[in-house]
């Protein structure tokens, strides 16, 4: 009790004699109260032991409160017993009271009734070290000498027992305190200030400085220690910092908030709230952030850390070890174990007095190994950092610093999280199979708890009471209680978690198994609301609620079916849940719900209800359709025709889930075919003109996915879908809609007929306008569409006139691979026009394209190489330009080693263009282009054959290349190319053979491989280039024969 009182209890900082009114103190006081109250009954003997010194304090009791056992005289009260010196064991002269035994203390508390807490508080405030008064100043040492002082043994034994009892209490109190402290894992102003001070001390001017400067953006400190303006404090911000490091670009603008520290946009230019936008990950503390952002800082700090104060270091080491041993146990077990350890630490670190509270956060922070600057060494131990991260997650998850939050609630919630985490990992391996288009999953660990300032305890206790009733209620009472539960704000996270933490989910799910429809309905109505929380969703699945809901889908009550389907829709937001729905036959049942007659105006109330059932079913299927296997299951259950029918519904709330499901499923080929054949394109196009953006977005997205197919593209045009798509481009604020629309336009523009329509609707101008300030997903589609449109020459001028070239070239700097593929294609298409090429050249676009050849993604490489071809063709002084790229020629020749056919074809095409310039041809010959091209000749890919033959034809013109090709054995394979079905291959091959035939030995090889017959056939081709090349080649062969004959026969 001594240690707890002197160290853990939070004394008021103003006057040392008052206890602060904090939850920690409250928890500890109530523990002491309970202990004292029961002391008399539990330890009757010890209770009679007379204290060395009385406990004295000012009480609120009056003489009238006392009953028998006490002598009352006027205002004062005395106990009947007295100690050996004649002092009465209890003496009251209001307001002062003197007590000598625990017996009287507990009596007293029983008399006080509702003022108990105050009484204990007053007593402790007046007696700051009760242990000393009770057992004397040297209680501990006295006990050690116990063996020697036998004569007092009777009294001693009691004293020792009492001491042990009090020690027990002490430990208990410390546990409470530690539990409270452990939860404070968040940053506090004090912690940030401390860290900033440390960092400031690291700034300097010399060579060894770690940072250039650290300063706050504001010098004004609010009373709560924060520096951010109040409206930003609302978001948990503490302060903003400007840190200049030695290596990163100019300055780091950092925001420190209670959740961590992160970079923000900075205060350049117009200072809007936007400039505070987060633009980096959230780090645990400044040091971690700086380490990540500045390699110099990371390096120097780890060097300096070794020279840090050794005493501190010793301590950290100890803590980390402690945590290591506790790793296997659950976090809160470990907390118990660590309790004495922590208490001891507090002894060492804490100066007596009121600073305790300020110190806590940073203490905790060090314990967790988070001040990585110091315990670099320890952190390197494998596994520790992971473990401490885990603890951090808990720290932020539990109610933590929010001082009003309840004491024992977070305990249960912690356990809950643990178990759900465990469950998650166990199902993980199985989950893995289910790949799909699920982008925005909520698979993230539920490790954040919304900041709420509401008075949590009242709601929590009310919910707990209701759930208790629910457990023991008949159906009538159950319904009343359920209705009352619904009156809570169930979308609020505190209520959701309260329901879970008091075991409400179990009860609600059990109710689903009863026969009572009203109970089921009531329960589902609550579940439907609370499962908008991802933790609750997991808990429901873990408790087997999903199976029951699936089986409810068979019910005859339509309201019940609706609710079950809606709840499934809300729960099935993560893979495991979706899989579970499928495995329990939910997909089939949900598909059955879709069966209704949606066309026309509804006739009866009954039909209305059927529609509602179908709508809920579609909602659930929508959620489920994010998993590939569920898509397949929906198809097998006959869902497609039903969805197609719902698509004709006039009701918007029906259309959205139906189209949503379809567009989700359209990632599968079977659906794309079905959407086309079932005539759904017409309905999708019709709904593009709806007045609901969400619906429009899903329709556009479905068209986006389906328009890979030519027939679909034609259908979209036939149903006049292109115009509404172009109209939708004007909805630039809704980025999701814009992304879907531009995607649909992109895919549709693959058909030239569609491009003509787009020209008519002036889509290009709008698209070019969308090249700036858009999210990448939009850009990818816009650029893709421009790339397709640019295949028609007249559009090239349009793009140039609207100023589209510059933004396109600027996009070449990006990193998004999909975007780069489309941008290079678009730039390449633009480069086919000489005027465009001038602009591209002026912007140094070719260099940018060339540098993309270094991109690790083969698609980007190929696309860049294709784009380079027209650039070289149309640029002025192309040869000079290419030579100016240092190492550029070597780079492109090396790409001939790529395993990717498309890359090879594109590089061959580029080489053919490069080789037009003799100097460059000489350079690439030096880089070994001949043997590399020769090694590719055995390919059967017609595209590669064509460009390879072209490249060979061009490269023959330099030096002895023609002979070298012959030596490398390219002739025979090339002759085989003539048997290909592709006329373009023929042309290129004939040209290559013509070039090669300039060397007599090659002619001999060709002739041996029977080249003459096919070439003679090709002389009769309509293609003049082919004609000429074939004829020239035959001429060369013939010429050789003549020369030979002449030489032989004279």
């Amino acid at each position, binding site marked *: 009790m001594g240690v707890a009182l002197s160290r853990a209890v939070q004394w008021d900082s103003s006057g040392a004699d008052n206890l602060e009114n904090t939850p920690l103190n409250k928890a500890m006081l109530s523990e002491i109260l309970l202990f004292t109250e029961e002391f008399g009954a539990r330890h009757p003997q010890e209770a009679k032991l007379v204290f060395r010194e009385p406990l004295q304090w000012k009480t609120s009791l009056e003489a009238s409160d006392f009953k028998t056992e006490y002598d009352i005289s006027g205002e004062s009260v005395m106990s009947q017993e007295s100690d050996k010196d004649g002092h009465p064991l209890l003496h009251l002269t209001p307001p002062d009271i003197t007590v000598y035994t625990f017996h009287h203390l507990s009596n007293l508390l029983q008399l006080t009734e509702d003022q108990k807490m105050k009484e204990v508080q007053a007593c402790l405030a007046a007696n700051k070290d009760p242990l000393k008064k009770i057992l004397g100043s040297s209680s501990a040492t006295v006990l050690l000498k116990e063996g020697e002082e036998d004569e007092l043994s009777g009294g001693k034994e009691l004293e020792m027992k009492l001491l042990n009892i009090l020690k027990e209490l002490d430990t208990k109190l410390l546990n409470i305190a530690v539990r409270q402290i452990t939860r404070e894992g968040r940053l506090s102003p004090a912690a940030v200030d401390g860290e900033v001070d440390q960092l400031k001390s690291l700034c300097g001017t010399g060579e060894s400085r770690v940072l250039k400067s650290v300063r706050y953006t504001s010098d004004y400190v609010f009373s709560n220690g924060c520096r951010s303006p109040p409206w930003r404090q609302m978001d948990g911000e503490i302060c903003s910092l400007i840190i200049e490091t030695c290596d990163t670009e100019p300055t780091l603008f950092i925001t420190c908030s209670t959740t961590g520290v992160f970079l923000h946009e900075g205060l350049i230019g117009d200072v809007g709230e936007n400039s505070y936008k987060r633009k980096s990950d959230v780090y645990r503390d400044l040091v971690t952030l700086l380490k990540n952002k500045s390699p110099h800082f990371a390096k120097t700090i780890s060097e300096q850390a070794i020279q840090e104060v050794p005493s501190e270091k010793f301590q950290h080491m100890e803590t980390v070890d402690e945590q290591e041993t506790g790793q296997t146990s659950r976090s809160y077990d470990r907390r118990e174990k660590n309790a004495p350890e922590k208490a001891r630490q507090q002894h060492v670190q804490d100066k007596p007095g009121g600073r305790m509270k300020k110190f806590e956060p940073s203490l905790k922070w060090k314990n967790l190994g988070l001040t990585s600057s110091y315990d670099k060494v320890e952190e390197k131990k494998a596994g520790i950092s992971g473990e401490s991260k885990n603890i951090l997650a808990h720290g932020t998850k539990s109610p933590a610093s929010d001082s009003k939050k309840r004491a024992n609630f977070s305990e249960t919630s912690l356990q809950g999280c643990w178990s759900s985490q465990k469950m998650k990992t166990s199902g993980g391996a199985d989950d893995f199979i289910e790949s799909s288009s699920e982008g925005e999953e909520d698979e993230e660990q539920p490790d954040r708890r919304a900041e709420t300032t509401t008075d949590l305890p009242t709601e929590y206790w009310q919910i707990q*009471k209701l759930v208790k009733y629910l457990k*023991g209620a*008949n159906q*009538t*009472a159950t319904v*009343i209680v*359920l*209705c*009352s539960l619904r009156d809570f704000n169930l979308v609020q996270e505190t209520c959701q978690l309260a329901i879970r933490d008091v075991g409400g989910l179990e009860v609600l799910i059990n109710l689903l198994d009863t026969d009572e429809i*009203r109970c089921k309905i009531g329960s589902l109505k609550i579940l439907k609301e609370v499962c908008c929380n991802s933790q609750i969703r997991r808990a429901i699945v873990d408790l087997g609620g999903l199976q029951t809901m699936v089986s409810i889908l068979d019910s005859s009550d339509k309201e019940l079916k609706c609710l079950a389907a809606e709840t499934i829709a809300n729960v099935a937001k993560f893979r495991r849940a979706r899989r579970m729905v499928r495995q329990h036959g939910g997909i089939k049942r949900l598909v059955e719900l879709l069966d209704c007659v949606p066309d026309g105006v509804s006739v009866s109330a009954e039909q209305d209800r059927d529609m509602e059932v179908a709508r809920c079913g579609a909602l659930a299927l929508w959620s489920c359709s994010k998993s590939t296997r569920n898509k397949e299951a929906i198809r097998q259950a006959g869902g497609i025709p039903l969805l197609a029918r719902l698509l004709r519904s006039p009701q918007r709330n029906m259309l959205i889930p139906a189209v949503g499901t379809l567009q989700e499923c359209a990632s599968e080929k079977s659906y794309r075919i079905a959407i086309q054949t079932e005539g759904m394109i017409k309905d999708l196009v019709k709904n593009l003109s709806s007045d609901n953006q969400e619906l429009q977005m899903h329709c556009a997205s479905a068209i986006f996915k389906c328009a890979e197919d030519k027939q679909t593209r034609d259908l979209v045009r036939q149903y006049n879908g292109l115009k509404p798509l172009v109209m939708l481009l004007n909805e630039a604020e809704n980025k999701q809609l814009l992304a879907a629309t531009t995607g649909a336009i992109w895919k549709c523009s693959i058909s030239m007929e569609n491009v003509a329509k787009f020209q008519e609707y002036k889509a290009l101008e709008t698209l070019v306008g969308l090249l700036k300030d858009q999210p990448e997903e939009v850009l990818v589609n816009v650029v893709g569409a421009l790339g397709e449109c640019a295949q028609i020459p007249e559009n090239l001028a349009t793009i140039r006139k609207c100023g589209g070239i510059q933004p396109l070239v600027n996009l070449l700097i990006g990193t998004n691979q999909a975007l780069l593929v489309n941008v290079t294609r678009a730039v390449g298409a633009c480069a086919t026009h000489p005027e465009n090429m001038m602009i591209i050249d002026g912007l140094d676009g070719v260099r940018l394209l060339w540098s993309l050849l270094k991109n690790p993604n083969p698609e980007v490489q190929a696309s860049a190489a294709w784009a380079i071809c027209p650039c070289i063709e149309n640029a002025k002084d192309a040869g000079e330009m290419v030579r100016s790229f240092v190492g550029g020629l070597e780079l492109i020749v090396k790409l001939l080693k790529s395993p990717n056919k498309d890359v090879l074809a594109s590089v061959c095409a580029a080489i053919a263009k490069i080789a037009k310039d003799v100097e460059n041809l000489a350079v690439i010959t030096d880089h070994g282009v001949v043997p590399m091209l020769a090694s590719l000749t055995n390919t059967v890919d017609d595209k590669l054959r064509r460009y390879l033959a072209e490249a060979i034809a061009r490269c023959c013109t330099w030096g002895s290349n023609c002979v070298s090709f012959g030596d490398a054995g390219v002739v025979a394979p090339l002759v085989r190319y003539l048997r290909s079905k592709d006329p373009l291959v023929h042309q290129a091959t004939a040209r290559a053979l013509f070039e090669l035939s300039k060397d007599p030995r090659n002619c001999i090889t060709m002739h041996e491989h029977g080249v003459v017959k096919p070439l003679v056939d090709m002389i009769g081709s309509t293609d003049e280039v082919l004609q000429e090349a074939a004829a020239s080649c035959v001429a060369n062969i013939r010429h050789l024969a003549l020369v030979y004959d002449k030489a032989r026969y004279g």
Partner: protein
Amino acid sequence: MSAMNRKLIQNLAETMCKQVKHFNTVEMECLIRLFNALLGEQTERKAGHGLDRLNFRHILHNTFDMTDDMMMDRVFRAFDKDNDSYISVKEWVEGLSLFLRGTLDEKIKYCFDVYDLNGDGYISREEMFHMLKDSLIRQPTEEDPDEGVKDLVDIALKKMDYDHDGKVSYADFKSTVRDENLLLEAFGNCLPHLKRIQSFEQQAFQEPQELH
């Protein structure tokens, strides 16, 4: 005799059809026949007035699955509109009309009458307590075993008492149920379940016709 009887029943059915909603004449006939059959089980003396309380409760229990004694009594009283302790054929048909086909508003009225034990037009706190007193498992450890029920009454009152006068008027009750259908049978089961209704209708309306 039988033919005349049939004629009588037909006439009765036709007249009743004009007075009672939701049934057609054929159904009405079936119900009257069923009533007569049930009467036949009773002793001669009582049969003149109609179904007595015991017999009626028997039907409620067996056919409509009701279990709560007090509620069954209240249902009997609600059926027995003239308060003569017997259910006449007209009362029978009217009651069943509500049981089987009643609209929400009709049911609200009926339930309110059932729950308004003393018929003063209000469901008072005491009446609620009386009806809910067995609805929670008592915790023997608690000081006041009725505390939970009292709390439940408070909860119900908070939910229903729109005009804050400490009791639930018909208007209160109506708006509550309109808001939340689940609270129609807030204080006890006094309407048959859907399944029971279906099986009763099947039995009552179809089997006799098969006999013809």
